[in-house]
């Protein structure tokens, strides 16, 4: 992975930069020893590591603003970092960039039941929001699998999802307001406790912008009343295509389950070895379907879903009879990644989305690619919304296997786009899928996105080298071609 060429002049000024930063934040908040910076050299995409120029851990929003303003004035690049759980390298440091860690922003400012929202600092973990309100019957819906560790500010940057987003949406659908600090050090608020801003939806643009537009310094999250009950079905199929069709049948019947997950044979057995959840080992595909809501509704819908699944050719159906059993059904799915980690020295976790009806084609394509590359693949899907998580098994100690696994992964993502889908459903582009962006987008598509970046960060100082395969100077992007005559006002400054 090629990152932007580090600027040696900046690296040479490291001591000077660190002492300038120490004037903006308490001295202990600047970390610059190699040893201490080691903890920040990678995020969840741990195949890539890089020590930053320095780490700054501010304690107030004003300090964030001061650091960013100083970096802007001195043309120093900046990489923001929440909890460092990104799976796509969004928080990968750069040798000539200051790493801005938001870890100290771990306080919940306000729990507001009248308006059903929580105002929190960006470093609060996703799960801590639910913990703060669950005694009163509320919860925060987005539940990425890293929810115990990932921060809500990072959730905004990555527009994180989870297993329940089929019914409850991604982060962007559960966010009411944000405060951000721009690269120039300006503190801005988008949205708030009201709905729909009435101007450009800059909160919507910030969500999922992977730390390229601004640093999130506060979030206002919508909280929901916890459903009265939840029950799950564990359903085996002897064919993945039939399982995929069954998922469509459930939705076509007007039922939106809280979650609909699918696993293939290899994933089923790895998970069963790990969690003893009672999964049908002989099945080619397993569905976990969860329904939540008022008890009478859940009971009625479980019956309807069971009928649909049997008609679709299910080979086994189990319905959870207790909360304990429902959690057991999920235990295997939730441990699928570590379980696969046990059957292979290394694995790559991919994340593409396809139109759900293309699932059988995709399964065939993956089987063929698996043969071609000589690597096994285990499949875990958020089946309800067509989001695939193929896990490519390899051994990094075997020369060339990492590269082969990466090529295999790239081919899967290319297939996703070919089938009408997209490169990433929830993990983000980061550095991991950066160079594949041209498969999904034309040059003009990407230029328009980068022009928007210029509206926020004209010097390309914030998180450069992520998301976009080619960096264009803002002045170049702003150039306007006039096809039908002369460029008007040639003397006007160009954006």
């Amino acid at each position, binding site marked *: 992975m090629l990152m932007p060429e580090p600027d040696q002049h900046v690296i040479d000024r490291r001591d000077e930069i660190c002492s300038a930063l120490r004037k903006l934040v308490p001295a202990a908040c600047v970390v610059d020893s190699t040893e201490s910076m080691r903890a920040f050299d990678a995020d969840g995409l741990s195949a890539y590591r890089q020590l930053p120029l320095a780490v700054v851990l501010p304690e107030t929003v004003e300090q964030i603003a001061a650091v960013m303003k100083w970096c802007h004035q001195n043309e120093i690049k900046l990489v923001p970092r929440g909890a460092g759980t990104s799976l796509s390298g969004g928080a990968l440091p750069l040798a000539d960039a200051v790493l801005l860690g938001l870890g100290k922003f771990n306080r919940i400012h306000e729990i*507001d039941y*009248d*308006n059903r929202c929580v105002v929190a600092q960006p470093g609060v973990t996703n799960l801590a929001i639910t913990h703060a309100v669950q005694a009163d*019957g509320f919860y925060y819906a987005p539940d990425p699998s890293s929810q115990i560790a990932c921060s809500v500010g990072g959730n905004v940057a*990555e*527009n994180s*999802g989870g297993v329940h987003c*089929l019914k409850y*949406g991604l982060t962007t659908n559960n966010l009411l*307001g944000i405060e951000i600090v*721009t690269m120039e050090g300006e503190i*801005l608020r988008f*949205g*708030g*406790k*009201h*709905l*729909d801003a*009435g*101007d*450009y*939806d800059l*909160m*919507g*643009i910030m969500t*999922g*912008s992977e730390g390229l537009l601004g640093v999130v310094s506060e979030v206002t999250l919508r909280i929901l*009343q916890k*459903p009265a009950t939840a029950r799950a079905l564990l359903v085996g199929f002897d064919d993945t295509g039939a399982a995929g069709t069954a998922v*469509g049948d459930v*939705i076509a019947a*007007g039922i939106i389950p809280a979650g609909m997950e699918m696993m293939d044979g290899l994933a089923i057995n790895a998970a069963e070895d790990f969690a003893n959840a009672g999964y049908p080992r002989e099945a080619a595909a397993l569905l976990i379907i969860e329904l939540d809501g*008022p008890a*009478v509704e859940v009971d*009625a819908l479980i019956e309807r879903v069971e009928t649909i699944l049997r008609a679709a050719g299910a080979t086994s159906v189990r319905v959870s009879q207790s909360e304990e059993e429902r959690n057991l059904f999920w235990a295997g799915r939730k441990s699928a990644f570590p379980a696969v980690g046990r059957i292979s020295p290394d694995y790559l976790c991919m994340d593409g*989305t396809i*139109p759900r*009806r293309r699932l059988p084609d995709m399964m065939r394509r993956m089987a063929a690619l698996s043969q071609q590359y000589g690597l096994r693949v285990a499949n875990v899907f958020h089946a309800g919304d*067509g*989001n695939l998580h193929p896990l490519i098994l390899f051994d990094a100690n075997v020369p060339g296997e990492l590269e082969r696994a990466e090529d295999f992964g790239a081919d899967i993502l290319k297939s996703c786009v070919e089938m*009408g*889908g997209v490169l*990433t459903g929830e993990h983000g582009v980061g550095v991991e899928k950066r160079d594949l962006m041209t498969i999904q*987008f034309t040059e*003009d*598509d990407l*230029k*328009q*996105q980068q022009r*928007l970046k*210029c*509206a926020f960060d004209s010097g390309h100082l914030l998180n450069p080298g992520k998301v976009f395969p080619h960096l264009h100077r803002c002045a170049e992007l*702003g150039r*306007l*071609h*006039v*096809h*039908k005559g002369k460029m*008007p006002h040639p003397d006007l400054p160009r*954006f």
Partner: protein
Amino acid sequence: MTDVIAASLADVKDAVESAIAAEHRLEVRGTGSKSNLGRACDFDATLDVSQMAGIVDYQPEELVMTLRAGTPMDVVENALADARQMLAFEPPRMGRISGGPRSELHGTIGGVVAANLSGPRRLTAGATRDYLLGFEAISGRGELFKSGGRVMKNVTGYDLSKLMCGSFGTLAVMDEITLKTLPAPETSQSLLVACADFRVAIKTIAQIFATPHEPGAAAILPQAIAAEEKVDTGGAFTAIIRLEGIAASVSDRVANLQTMTGGETIAAPASESLWQRIRDVQPLAEKPHDLWKVSCAPSDAPRVVAALDSLVGVRFMADWAGGLLWFGASRSRDLGNRLRAVVAELDSGFAMLVRDVAVTRDEIAPFQPLPSPLFELHKRVKASFDPRGVLNYGRMHSGI
């Protein structure tokens, strides 16, 4: 340059390029059902996109519909109804809110998206912006670009769909768009709760939302309007709570909430027509009044309403659990100024002039003015799509 009727994005590209070359500005329009929303644009020619119509691909079991932005809303709604699905954000019919000659206009899906118009279910199901999955468009630079996709879960690149929603055509002209659809509820009922005053109504709704009985929409009508709508409970205010779902679930939840609040219920047909009237703000829009809407935190709503206490002749109603306030007055200049002032004192919210009958859009800005750093950022965002100000220039704010 002369007015253009576009049949394709190639036509749009041509029109935008011609406008750039001639230093002209364009007003983008569908059927004109929302032409009184926002400021009057500064334009030399109109770009009519209503011919760019038709459903391209609709897969109910995939929960996605791809269609052209000029598709009339009645066509969209009929196709959804045939598959027992809906646009969950319940877009109002802006023509009925506008009234007068526009009241029979259904509008286009592109107009709904451009105005980010959402109805009562917005409170729990989200806004238009939560359902636009992707689009392709011509920018104000005359360039074809796309964003998002045709799948439900996608974080590839910036989410420009969000920006298109509520941008009032100031950034780009869309053709194909993809929306997420959802199954329509099998049935619905409403609960009517008598409340002694507005504050009590807000509090009652908050208490209902702190139960697991899944209320889907919540409006508040003052007694005079409740009486006109034949839902007078005898309280100074009536809180109206809508519950949707399968029949067994709806009756069970309504029964639970009835026990809790002592309210009365109305069944599906009456409930549906009442909510359609609330969605289209009919209790206020049927009078020849200026209309304002305020979006605020529900708990701030009593303060907004109290600020108008001494103003006579103001009718109001609330939706979104109090988070959306509608006001009507025969001459609303004082009303508008007061709403702007009280909203500016709140932590968050905005006041918008939705219909001008007596006041004109020239004398009072329809959109809440933006504080300076935000205005500057808006200008830069506008310039990144439309550096020459070709598209709907000034529709939202002067200079954007």
